């Protein structure tokens, strides 16, 4: 069965390594924070100027001066640090952030990503997405494998305006975990109960299926 958004977040959380500095985008990526494995200490970066983001505040303890990049009220962990937006993107551009997790509308087989603009619709802006994808050394995309019409969002090339090129390293969709290598999607894992055939049929870009494909370990 296809994963729900919590399971996608849970699977992505397994990619976290001890000591990582991680930037989590808005939506499913934000949920990853709830599934950080035990014994793994990561520091969450919020691009509006914080290292060491903690959980949402208890009711009544929210502070208008303390929000994340999704404008949600948050808290900090001990050892956190605040800085301005230039330093924040400075640490992103200089590769100090180990992992970036973000959503996508389309990803191409060479790692291009489109996630900011749909022609004909009101354009809200790219926010920090273009900076993140242009700079992050390790980008994991959390996304649905297909659009509501059932059409693949993993494409030979993106049809929507691009956010960045040749930057996505890994995709965790509701159906599969895939790596991007040498201009191909490479299937690594499949959602529990989802067949390789279904994934193949729903992936329009070049897909490599090499040997036995294990099921993801999610609850």
């Amino acid at each position, binding site marked *: 069965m296809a994963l729900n958004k919590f399971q996608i977040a849970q699977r992505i959380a397994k990619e976290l390594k001890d000591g990582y500095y991680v930037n989590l985008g808005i939506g499913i990526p934000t949920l990853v924070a709830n599934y950080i494995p035990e014994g793994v200490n990561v520091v969450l970066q*919020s*691009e*509006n*100027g*914080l290292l060491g983001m903690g*959980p*949402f*505040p*208890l*009711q009544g*303890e*929210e*502070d*208008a*001066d*303390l*929000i*994340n*990049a*999704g*404008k*949600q*009220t*948050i808290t*900090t962990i001990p050892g956190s640090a*605040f*800085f*301005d*937006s*230039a330093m*924040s*993107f*400075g640490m*992103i*551009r200089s590769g100090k952030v180990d992992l970036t997790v973000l959503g996508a509308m389309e990803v191409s087989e060479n790692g*291009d990503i489109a996630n900011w603009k749909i022609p004909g619709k*009101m*354009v*809200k*802006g*790219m*926010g*920090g*997405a*273009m*900076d993140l994808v*242009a*700079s992050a050394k390790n980008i994991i995309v959390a996304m649905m494998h297909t659009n509501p019409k059932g059409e693949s969002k993993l494409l030979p090339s993106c049809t929507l*305006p*691009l*956010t*960045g*090129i*040749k930057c996505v390293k890994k995709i965790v969709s509701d159906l599969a975990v895939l790596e991007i290598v040498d201009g191909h999607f490479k299937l690594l894992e499949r959602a529990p109960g989802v067949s390789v055939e279904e994934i193949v049929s729903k992936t329009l870009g070049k897909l490599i299926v090499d040997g036995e494909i294990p099921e993801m370990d999610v609850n």
Partner: protein
Amino acid sequence: MNKVFYNAADAIADIPSGATLMLGGFGLCGIPENSISALATSGIHHLTCISNNAGVDDFGIGLLLQNRQVKKMIASYVGENAEFERQLLSGELEVELIPQGTLATRCMASGYGLPAIYTPAGIGTEIAEGKEIREFNGKAYLLEMAFEADFAIVKAWKGDAMGNLIFKDTARNFNPLMAMAGKITIAEVEELVAVGELDPNHIHTPGIYVNRIFQGQDYEKRIEQLTTRTQ
């Protein structure tokens, strides 16, 4: 040389119609509330506003949009604002979208006397169209120009009569960067303290970058996305 102004109306009194303004803040966090209110009742118009966001319908830059005071908005993200969308679609409002890190760094470049920066943000996208692209160590970068505004308007937590500023938590965001990028920089502060009260090691914006300062009042500090946990 007195930098202290009585209130927002006093501090913004000479901003003319057609001016280019930078406004600090991220979403509604750390925005110069008092100054925006004063601008909204000032009658000036045809403003170009440079700010990461455009406020919401009834707060922040949204107040200036309601009054049709904004000719052009330069931002990285402009969602959450129906009036904004209406004016944009009707052609009343021009919009220029800039990647957030580029926006921040172009402001800083101005305050650091760097005429331009090279950034990878936007390479391979429509943002790169018409811009100079250059490779360094095998990676492509865009040349982006430093950003200056006629007036930069920022909000700090504490400040003193020398213009020194300290920001609080994530309300810092674009504020110290824009403070460096104004031909004239106006700072409103929650608390104007006596000179010498701020620890010189804690100052985020040294007073040399600030031309006017005033103690703001009645801060609403609206929360855009109140999100809490239950235990």
